[in-house]
């Protein structure tokens, strides 16, 4: 019998429906996997008791014939989603002991459909990072290793590194993520799994700890495209509590998932062929282009002329919003408090002890670019560039149905690499940030491995609200790539 943790969500739902397996068994198998993989540090808080009690309820619903669309599927939740009664930290010392008294809209929707929570997944502090090396709760390790005998621990990508590592290591069947500049797509690529950031406004931000409100968007990870579609179906949709959530019907992603790209026009943005991009990245991209042609799509070269300005634009807008969003962490109503000589001293000590270096850097950059005398030069300038970047995409989408690009400029790198200069780390998001600035749906699917056996992902970017096309192109890549490689942890366990 196939190991339960290797099942896809679709397979598991089928078996649960036929009562070949129980939700409790399935959950227990994942709890065991979590225990075996603790060295990856993917979880900040494990919640096996909650998972088992939810599983029991699921089994009862299966017995009664009232099972929901995700009944009995064990998920991991990025610890940026507030979960009622379960500590939610945003991987920050400042929220070390914060227990929300409310449940985020996205997780509520999952629970309503019968999914269950295995625990809260590690991430970069407040989702600020690209390697999951800024968490107060320690680095997350990528379950993948280089195949040349190099035992260096690799990063899982960030900020949703706990999510990608846990899904790849078969600790959870799927996971939530958030993506502000690539925080779902880049870790998905680094860990050889699929992840989608839907259109800005598709999933509610209510109850998700904010980093940069005009960019933050919740999404999902799974080990294939179909499962991502199933998960997104559950958590997407209008929320009257989020003023930026769109009141649009959610298409039936799974029913519309044909994987056909026949006659589609796929855009290849020439600016993404950047100097210094490793040959292997270009190679997998070219391979993806061939697959598209083979599947009957038309390849169209397009130009997104302001691509090179996307990262600096992002590193004005995101820090500006973060500097304001994180002002609420002042030790007055919740979270860490470090006593001081007076109130201001208490604020300053609390925030100095509560935030890590990367968060402090971004708060300070953000504070600076909004301050008197610099607002126009930096913040307004960045908003204007954002408009130009947005317009680039809209122009391209007059000619094509979707864009195909690499997800990240490299495979997973070693922990500690790219840490000497913040900008080096920022460059990881060079292919994902433009799509975020434009609020577009973007997905990463594993397309192959590099010469060291590490997974590489391709990114599919769609028109606003057109996740259906994004899923179909992704499915076509997935089918062609036939990605079967497994991370070291899973292979060794099987052996």
């Amino acid at each position, binding site marked *: 019998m196939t190991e339960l943790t290797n099942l896809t969500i679709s397979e598991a739902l089928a078996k649960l429906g036929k009562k070949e397996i129980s939700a409790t068994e399935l959950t227990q198998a994942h709890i065991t996997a979590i225990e075996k993989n603790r060295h990856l540090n993917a979880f900040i808080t494990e919640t096996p008791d909650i998972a088992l009690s939810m599983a029991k309820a699921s089994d009862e619903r299966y017995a009664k014939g009232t099972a929901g669309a995700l009944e009995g599927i064990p998920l991991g939740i990025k610890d940026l989603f507030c979960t009622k009664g379960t500590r939610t930290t945003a991987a920050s010392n400042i929220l070390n002991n914060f227990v929300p008294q409310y449940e985020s809209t996205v997780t509520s929707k999952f629970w309503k459909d019968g999914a269950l929570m295995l625990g809260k997944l590690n991430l970069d502090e407040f989702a600020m990072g690209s390697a999951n090396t800024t968490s107060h709760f320690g680095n997350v390790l990528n379950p993948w290793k280089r195949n040349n005998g190099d035992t260096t621990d690799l990063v899982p990508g960030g900020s949703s590194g706990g999510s990608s590592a846990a899904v790849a290591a078969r600790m959870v069947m799927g996971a939530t993520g958030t993506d502000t500049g690539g925080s779902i797509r880049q870790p998905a690529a680094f860990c050889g799994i699929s992840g989608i950031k839907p259109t800005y*406004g598709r999933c509610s931000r209510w109850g998700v700890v904010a980093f940069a409100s005009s960019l933050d968007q919740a999404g999902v990870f799974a080990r294939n495209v179909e499962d991502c579609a199933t998960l997104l179906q559950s958590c997407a949709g209008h929320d009257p509590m989020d003023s930026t959530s769109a009141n649009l019907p959610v298409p039936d992603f799974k029913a519309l998932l044909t994987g056909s790209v026949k006659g589609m026009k796929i855009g290849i943005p020439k600016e993404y062929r950047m100097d210094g991009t490793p040959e292997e990245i270009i190679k997998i991209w070219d391979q993806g282009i061939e697959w598209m042609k083979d599947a009957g799509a038309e390849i169209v070269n397009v130009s997104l002329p302001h691509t090179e*300005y996307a990262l600096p634009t992002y590193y004005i807008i995101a820090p500006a919003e973060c*500097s304001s969003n994180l002002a609420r962490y002042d030790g007055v109503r919740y979270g860490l408090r470090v006593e001081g000589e007076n109130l201001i001293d208490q604020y300053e000590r609390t925030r100095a002890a509560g935030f890590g270096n990367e968060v402090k*850097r971004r708060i300070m950059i953000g504070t600076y670019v909004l301050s008197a005398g610099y607002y126009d030069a930096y913040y307004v300038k960045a908003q204007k560039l*954002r408009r130009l970047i947005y317009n680039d995409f809209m122009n391209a989408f007059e000619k094509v149905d979707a864009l195909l690009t690499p997800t990240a400029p490299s495979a997973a790198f070693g922990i500690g690499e790219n840490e000497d200069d*913040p900008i080096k780390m920022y460059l990881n998001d060079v292919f994902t940030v433009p799509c975020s600035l434009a609020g577009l749906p973007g997905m990463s699917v594993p397309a192959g491995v590099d010469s060291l056996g590490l997974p590489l992902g391709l990114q599919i970017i769609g028109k606003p609200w057109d996740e259906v096309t994004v899923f179909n192109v992704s499915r076509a890549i997935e089918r062609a790539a036939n990605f079967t490689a497994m991370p070291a942890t899973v292979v060794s366990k099987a052996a």
Partner: protein
Amino acid sequence: MSMDVKTVAKVASLARIRVESDELDKYSRELSGILKWIEMLDNVNTDSVEPLANVANIELKQREDVVSDGNYQQAVLKNAPESLQGYFAVPKVIE
């Protein structure tokens, strides 16, 4: 634009983050590096471009004026580092 230590100190104070004097140099170096990189945006003429604050192309949502929330003092105070008599407590503020 570079961020000298004086500016770093001022920004840190605005952001209410205590920065020790021996950290100022490091911040000044790092933040100046980031600012210098950001300034490549100056290469683009944006005189006739409208700023874009949010891509959500929808009407601003509005709610009915009904009391539908609140009235759970305990839940609000649940995570407070210090609360007394139903209030949040902080060191005395002297104005």
